[in-house]
Every structure is written in structure tokens, then in C-alpha cells.
């Protein structure tokens, strides 16, 4: 049992990293990685939303969709659930922590359409191992770890980009070009983890 979750954890964070090996959530990966500060804020928001979305979606899937044989509605229902969750988080954040709300800015509503979140939830329900698919805590741990993997990639990448700002980059490579090259190399580095689990 415990070893099983250890496998899930390492698998989600390093081996099947959402950004660097599944290539989900590339938009925030490139968009919010200019500064380490915003990357940290975005990582926090994604961890929060993804864990919560995994939990709620898994509950709905297990107790509503599967018993009623409505699995074909999974994508539709999950999108609705994620959108409402983000909306809820946004409303509550604005009241409870205006500073965090300001620093996240446009990226909090953008999490709604972050394919990493939907991808994680859909994977939970469809192609994950039995222990994740059929238990809500398995799904929650997987969602949390996937988000941690996303955060790891985002923080690594933003640190790299901060250093890159000071580097003498050839003119043709400046800006997005060198960022994409860097992301590619980072993804290749993460390929080294394959076969670990």
C-alpha cells in the first residue's frame, strides 16, 4: 500500500512529469516563468486547484458517473467542476488574501483552461492504475503529486530564465526562442528519469 503510493509520487513528479514528459500545461509554463516570484505564486495556485479538482472529480466519478453508467460524460462534467472550483477559489481569495489575488492576476482564471488540470483529472478517471481510479485518496494524492511535478518544472524553468536574462544570447535566439530551446533541454533531462518506476 505504502510502496504503491511512493511509486505514484515519484512517477507523477519525476517520471511522468506533466509539463516535461506529457507536455500538458505548456501555456503557464512559458507564460508565468519569467520571474521566480510569479512562478511560485502560480505553482501554489495550481497545486491547490489540481488537488481539489482531483478529489472532487474522483468523488463525482465514483459515486455519480460510474454507478449511473455515464462515463461518456466525464470530460464534460470535469470541465464544469474545474471551472466552478476555480471560480470559487477566486472569489474566496479576493476576500481572504487580496495580495495573493493581485499577484496571481489573470493566471488564476486561466487555470480553468489549464490542460494540466483537466488532463490530470481525466487520467485519474480513465487510464490510471486501479488504486488511483477507484479510490478518492489515491486520486487526490496523484493530483497533488502531479501538481508538485508541475510546480517543480515551473520553478526550475523560471530560475533558468532568470539566469538567461543575464546571458549573452545571440540576437536571433532572444526571448521566446531561447526559452523554448531551454524547455526542450530540460524535458530531455527529465527523460533520464524514465524507467525509474
Amino acid at each position, binding site marked *: 500500500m505504502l510502496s504503491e503510493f511512493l511509486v505514484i509520487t515519484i512517477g507523477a513528479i519525476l517520471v511522468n512529469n506533466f509539463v516535461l514528459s506529457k507536455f500538458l500545461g505548456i501555456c503557464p509554463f512559458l507564460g508565468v516563468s519569467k520571474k521566480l516570484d510569479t512562478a511560485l505564486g502560480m505553482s501554489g495556485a495550481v497545486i491547490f486547484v489540481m488537488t481539489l479538482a482531483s478529489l472532487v472529480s474522483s468523488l*463525482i466519478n465514483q459515486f*455519480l*458517473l460510474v454507478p*449511473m*453508467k*455515464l462515463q*461518456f*460524460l466525464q470530460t*464534460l*462534467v470535469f470541465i*464544469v*467542476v474545474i471551472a*466552478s472550483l476555480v*471560480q*470559487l477559489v477566486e*472569489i*474566496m481569495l*479576493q*476576500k*481572504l488574501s*487580496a495580495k495573493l489575488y493581485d499577484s496571481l492576476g489573470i493566471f488564476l482564471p486561466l487555470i480553468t483552461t489549464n490542460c494540466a488540470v483537466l488532463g490530470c483529472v481525466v487520467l485519474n478517471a480513465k487510464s490510471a492504475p486501479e488504486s488511483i481510479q477507484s479510490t478518492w485518496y489515491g486520486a487526490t494524492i496523484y493530483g497533488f503529486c502531479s501538481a508538485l511535478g508541475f510546480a517543480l518544472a515551473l520553478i526550475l524553468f523560471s530560475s533558468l530564465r532568470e539566469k538567461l536574462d*543575464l546571458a*549573452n544570447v545571440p540576437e536571433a535566439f532572444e526571448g521566446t526562442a531561447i526559452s523554448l530551446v531551454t524547455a526542450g533541454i530540460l524535458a530531455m533531462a527529465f527523460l533520464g528519469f524514465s524507467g525509474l518506476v
Partner: protein
Amino acid sequence: MSIAVIAIIAVGVLGALLGIIIGIVAKVFAVETDERIERVGELLPGANCGGCGYAGCADFAKSVVSETATPDQCPVCSKEDVQAIADYLGIVAEEKEKKVALVRCSGDIPNTVRSLYNGVRDCRSAVLVAGGAKGCDYGCLGFGSCAEACPFGAIEIRKGLAVVHKELCVGCENCVAACPKELIVMVPEAATTHVYCNSPEKGAAKRKVCKTACIACRKCVKASGEEDHMEIDGFLIRTNYENAPGPELVEAAGCPTTALRVDTLHAEGAYEGVTK
């Protein structure tokens, strides 16, 4: 019951439930906003230059409405703009003198001694390498950190020298903070004649590295006579902004190095190559 009906009902119920929850949460966690903040924000320039010391125009608007700031603290607003905001909020606007930035250096590339520098094209980086590659330790490095900091495009880098275009400058002071040589000062907009030098070195030492340095010959001090237009500051003459001279002083003084200049002519480049 067919599967389609079940699907429609299930999604419908789920949607309605989530909608109700969001509705309730939005009511419970409602954030009260003051409509005056929005209106004041519209009256502000919206350049988000930070010249007022607040984090952007929206933040400034909030402070103005809560009366922790006054509208005249916005350096970009014209008198009419400040008046409009004050009228809207029903407070009395204070008048203040408009100030613009002045780069106290006239040493462009043809007029100064420089050594080779191949590092990052940024003044704050260049200054780390032995204070920059300029012969004069106090002069403008000309990599344009100030021009980059200016949200209004009022600073031009011409022949390795930062030149302020006064008519575009709004006085946000972003450039003052950006200059590692502390060359930029805020001067009254009404003042026209300035000494474009900030080196405290002795005249002969300055002349070795710069053709347009102020050598403190005091011609301008004598020409202003009893008027006290100019101040002597060691080996440097500065404009006395309490009693600023007019452009006629430049003609009367006949500054031998053209360090004393009229700002509009300096911005147009009229003094380039006239060094005696």
C-alpha cells in the same frame, strides 16, 4: 428511461448545484468596492509609471479616495487633471511646481575619452567594471538605463549621451533611480539654463578627459553679476534653481567649454561640435 434523459438530468442537476454554491459563496465573500476608486482611476493617466510612489495608477486612486494621498502627488497629471480629480472628490487641490529630469553631463562620444568596453550594454553593469569605460568617473555612460526606465520615451541616447526631451518628461523620477552615477536631478520646468557637468574634479583634470566639462572659470558667475544666478560648488558651477537664469546668460557668459547650455538647444543638438 433512456440513457440520454439520465445524462441530461445528471448534468443539469450538477450544473444547477454548482451554480447555487457559487452564488452563495459570492454573496458571503463579496468584496465591497468603492465606485469612486474606479472613477478616479479613469481620470488618472493610466501610465502606471510609479512616479507617485504607489504601485500603479489603480493603487494611487485607492489612496487618493481614502485620503492617504492627494491628487497632486501624480507627477504626470496636468493642473487641469488634478483639478478634475479634486472637484470629483470635493477636496481642494494644492498647486505645485512641475519638475523635469536633467542629465548633468554633456560628454558625448566625440567630446570624451573612453576605453573599450564589451560587456552588457547597461549602465548599472558597466559601472561595476572600474566605474565604467569613460575617462570621467562622474559622467554619463550612455548605455541608456535611464532611457529604458522612462515609461514616456523622454530620454534619447545620442552619441553615447542621455539627453532629456523636456516636453515629453512628466517628472516621474524613474530615471533618477536608474542612473548609477546619480547624474539625473529634478529641476523646475521653468528653468532653461543649466550646467551640464557634475564632476567635482579640478578643471585641468576634467579637461584631459572631456572637452565640455565645467572648469569653474566663473565667467557665468561674473556675467550674472549681482543676480546670484549661479552657485559655486568647489570646482564646479551649478545653476541656482531658487533664482534660475534665462537663456541670455549663455550668450553673456560665453562659456569656454559650452558646459553652460540652454536645455532646448541641448536637446536639439545645437551644441554638438561647437567646443572651443
